[in-house]
């Protein structure tokens, strides 16, 4: 029943994402066509044609029905700047983003949780103060600025634009090495900022558990300090921390947008930037629906995972 409830909740959320995506770009002051064509020489006739082409001259309900049924088929309209279906454009940029976000999140989670556990266990030690201080500072650092600083500081050590060089040999190993080389700076930027958040989350989660009576029980049994931590404190603290990590997945998305913009990483983040500078409303709308939908799905996964891992939560 619980699982069905979760699935239902996620379905409602996805529906809300779709509705939000539609109205956010419709119920706005001004004419979308006017603002999209701003700065380009257009006549009233051309604008009217665009309106018809995008269906903007229809009643709102009809537009929504058209949009919604399209969405179900995977049709998100046509990009104004690319003159191609939004879905195709997004699909083609998915890979680089998955690579960047996946690598960075993995590193950030492992590093963040480990540092957080160590800091909390030796609360107020030099290590704790240093870790917390650095994390708080990194949390205050704007991602894009950090990226630009790293770029400036490393000079020519690492490539700072794009994902691969045009003159790399076509074989797999050279290509992979080249992408890896390009990946260093963007992923470092993303890890630094995201990891800081995870350290703080994990640290406070473990600190909450530090005075739990069952740890006294474990000590009384004669367990060594590190076993008390490993077997009893951490398993209890890690589960809520992981949930929080997933809940703040939006943070990673935000980080990816600015990081990709700074490093011209050809993923969804850079596409976002291109779409908003247009502005290309259909592309923006598609990106919003896709990212928000992805976050909703991630959350559902986290929920289910939490239910499987944590015996206190029942998923039947």
């Amino acid at each position, binding site marked *: 029943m619980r699982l069905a409830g979760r699935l239902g909740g996620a379905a409602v959320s996805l529906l809300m994402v779709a509705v939000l995506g539609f109205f956010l770009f419709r119920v706005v002051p001004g004419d979308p066509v006017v603002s999209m064509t701003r700065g380009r020489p257009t006549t009233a006739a051309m604008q009217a044609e665009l309106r018809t082409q995008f269906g903007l001259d229809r009643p709102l309900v009809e537009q929504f029905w058209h949009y919604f049924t399209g969405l179900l088929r995977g049709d998100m309209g046509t990009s104004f700047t690319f003159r191609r279906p939004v879905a195709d454009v997004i699909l083609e940029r998915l890979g680089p983003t998955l690579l960047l976000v996946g690598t960075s999140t993995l590193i950030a989670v492992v590093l963040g949780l480990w540092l957080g556990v160590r800091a909390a266990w030796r609360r107020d030690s030099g290590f704790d103060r240093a870790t917390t201080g650095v994390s708080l500072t990194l949390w205050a650092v704007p991602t894009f600025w950090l990226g630009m600083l790293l770029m400036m500081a490393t000079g020519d050590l690492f490539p700072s634009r794009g994902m691969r060089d045009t003159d790399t040999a076509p074989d797999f190993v050279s290509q992979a090495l080249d992408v890896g080389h390009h990946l260093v700076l963007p992923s470092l930027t993303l890890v630094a900022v995201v990891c800081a958040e995870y350290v703080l989350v994990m640290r406070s989660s473990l600190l909450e558990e530090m005075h739990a009576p069952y740890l006294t*029980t474990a000590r009384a049994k004669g367990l060594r300090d590190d076993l008390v931590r490993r077997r*009893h404190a951490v398993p209890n603290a890690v589960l809520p921390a992981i949930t929080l990590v997933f809940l703040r997945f939006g943070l990673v998305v935000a980080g990816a947008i600015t990081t990709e913009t700074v490093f011209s990483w050809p993923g969804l983040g850079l596409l976002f930037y291109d779409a908003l500078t247009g502005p290309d409303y259909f592309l923006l709308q598609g990106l919003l629906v896709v990212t928000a939908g992805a976050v909703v799905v991630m959350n559902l996964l986290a929920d289910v995972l939490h239910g499987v891992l944590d015996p206190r939560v029942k998923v039947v």
Partner: protein
Amino acid sequence: MIKPSLELKNLSVHYGHKRVVHDVNLALEPGQTLGLAGESGSGKSTVAMSVLRLLPRTAHVEGEILLDGDDVRTMSWGRLRAVRWASASIVFQGAMHSLNPVQRVGEQIAEPMRLHGTGGSVGELLEQVELPLGKARAYPHELSGGQKQRVMIAMALACGPRLVIADEPTTALDVVVQAQVLGVLKRLVAEQDLGLLMISHDLSVLAETCDDLAVMHRGELVERGRTREVIANPRHPHTAALTAAFPVIGDPAHRWAEPAPEPQPLLEVRDLAVDYGRTRAVDGVDLTIGRGEIVALVGQSGSGKTTLARTIMGLRTPSSGRVIFDGVEVPRKGKALKAFRRQVQLVLQDPASALNPRHTVHDAVAEGLRVHGLADDEESQVTAAVERAELRPASLYLEALPHELSGGQQQRVVIAGALVLQPRLLVADEPVASLDASVRGEIVALLLRLRRELGLASLIITHDLGLAWQIADRVAVMHQGKIVEQGSVEQVLLNPTHDYTRALLRAVPQV
């Protein structure tokens, strides 16, 4: 000469400048059972934790703690870890939090056995505490309170220690479950010839389990002797206060209530039913409270007694049935309900949480006046109510915040806050359950005096049959949403007719 299994010599514990335990000397022979009694803050739990050196680092410990002749204080960490659980183990207070919530209980019982390399099986241990083997695969939250406490006991016996320390092992449990758990503990201690150091605020629990009794007061050991002798002839005034606080049912000396005036009905409950979703919490209850009468509503937790009280007060809507107050049906909403609430006031179990920590005594007592717009002459009304509740002179207390007061004083503030509206009925939910034993008697006396002087009727909700004996005119016994028996105190408590009442009475620990 037999070497004592535990010997404390001049044990003192300080936290900074605060002295928690002072110069305690105590010895426990192998196989001996010793109860350590005391109120909250008396230092009894600190003593228990010091035995396995489990106090926080901020604690400063002096003296000797000899466990089988070795001083725990000066042991190396390695030796200490070897001694923990193998020589002495602990049944902790509140099994709810003392078990790891994400580990199966079987694994938690097995952990010390593996660690200390002792034999034995989880199955045998569970059998000893009368739990089915299948429960080994359960997580703590899947067990009831009593089952969790049995798991704690099984865990404590896992490495075959010679001494078991039990720190308030039954405090959070219901009377009936408490009796069962105490039974298991008592049997195992006798069968395996274990030493037992049991810590409790409840003398009757200790009297039931331990041959010897020691009493602590403000960090000092004030009395020690055979349990029967200590309780029969307490030498220290504090011990005397503790023994007096646990009334013996049937003993006329512990019956404080004067005969009630000829009852005219004040509140009548007719065929009342209350549902929580699909569960029927209160099921067809009839109850009458006369003017100036004190009625005790007794039952286990979950019996529906609290729901009944809330419904009488108009805090919950009944599914069917009627509540009639002074001949008029209690209104369910609006101004009429608000007016009714002046007549009936609530006194809650834990006074510390019944008072907003940010409000001064004055604010707390005046709250009712302000709600009802009776704030003219607030100062004198508040003062009068506070003094009625025996906080004299009122000016000393009016500006205090709740945390600056003792538990007894806090409960008086709650009572004053009720009195200020000049109610005719007081609904008191476990009014003394969370108070220290020595204060308990004073609050009981206050409630009786209010009845005598103001003709205030009370409905006392309690699990404690002793309290009912002490204070009530009539007793109603509630079980699974129904009142199974009601009548005068003597009739119900001395000659019970219903099986459930008998079971409740049997569960009361005997001094």
